[in-house]
């Protein structure tokens, strides 16, 4: 998927694509380092249950809206219950590649719709 329009790409652009792919592969750093330093959720991104633990109740609006959407790959993992760090790293890499490729392709399509050069 990353090779869309590759024919028209410069050498420098291809190099950047490989760097992006490399970044996808090392994304599990984003799991390991927080784990090592015992850091949890981002501020304001707690689940409804966590908020209840923090303040003693679940705000009604939070309760109502928190499950409004069921994302196909929630939290960048295909199996939340899998406790294996190796498996979670794998899920994270796959999520990174799927998400970044999708973002790349969608942005290319949107850009082509927007930018209409007279060539």
């Amino acid at each position, binding site marked *: 998927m990353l090779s869309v*329009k590759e024919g028209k*790409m410069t050498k*420098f*652009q291809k190099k*950047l*694509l490989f760097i*992006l792919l490399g*970044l*996808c592969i090392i*994304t599990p750093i*984003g799991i390991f*380092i*927080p784990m*090592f*330093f*015992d*850091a*949890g*959720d*981002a*501020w*304001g*991104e707690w689940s*409804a249950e966590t*908020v209840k633990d*923090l*303040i003693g*109740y679940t*705000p*009604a*609006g*939070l309760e*109502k*809206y928190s499950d*409004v*959407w*069921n*994302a*196909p*790959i*929630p*939290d960048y993992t295909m199996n939340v219950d899998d406790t294996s760090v190796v498996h979670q790293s794998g899920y*994270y890499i796959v*999520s*990174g590649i*799927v*998400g*970044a490729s999708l*973002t*790349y392709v*969608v*942005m*290319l399509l*949107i*850009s082509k719709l*927007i*930018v*209409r*050069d007279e*060539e």
Partner: protein
Amino acid sequence: MHIPDGYLSPQTYIPLMGVFVAATAIAVKKVRKDVSARNIPYLGMAAAFSFIIMMFNLPIPGGTTGHAVGSAVIAILLGPWAAMVAVSVALIIQALIFGDGGITAIGANCFNMAVFMPFVAYYTFKLFGARPAAKSRVFIAAFVSGYLSLVMTAVLTAVEFGIQPMIASAPDGKALYCPYDLSIAIPAMAIEHLVLFGIVEGVITAMIVRYFLKNESGLIYAFGKGGKND
């Protein structure tokens, strides 16, 4: 910094969605005018980069996590309007596919990280008046641009969280949405971004701008090149 569903009241997320949609309409026109077709691959890569960089969670030891956004470097390299579109695409895919950031909060999250942040970053960078030849000045300008824009975006997000207890509470005084007010939200969000996440955004911004200055300096939008007429 991805506000989930249920933290913002409709009085907050609906106007922010409106502002985001209006800004997008302007961005489409600006990008059409500003961006050359040969730079389309960069737009795609910029969006993908923003998506990936947000996966690198960094810890405040024993506390919360956060991450860089990438909006600053994209604004400097491709312009704030192109950055707006690119980062919005990343944020919307994060929300729809990965549940990172709420569906109802898409407008708010895009306004914060894809509209506000690239514009703060771009004009901060421009304020330094750095010319391409002055490499260390460019480096410093890019660092400050990344640092300041992320910190200010964190404060903006904290304001959106923190006003919720004021504008939407149950009759018994219990919070309906985000339960923390401004006096808690602003210090919490500001400090973690001042001491860590902002620095990371700054370093990433400075390093990538330097890399482009060396390899593809003609592209850099903030230097007034890379448009259709170069």
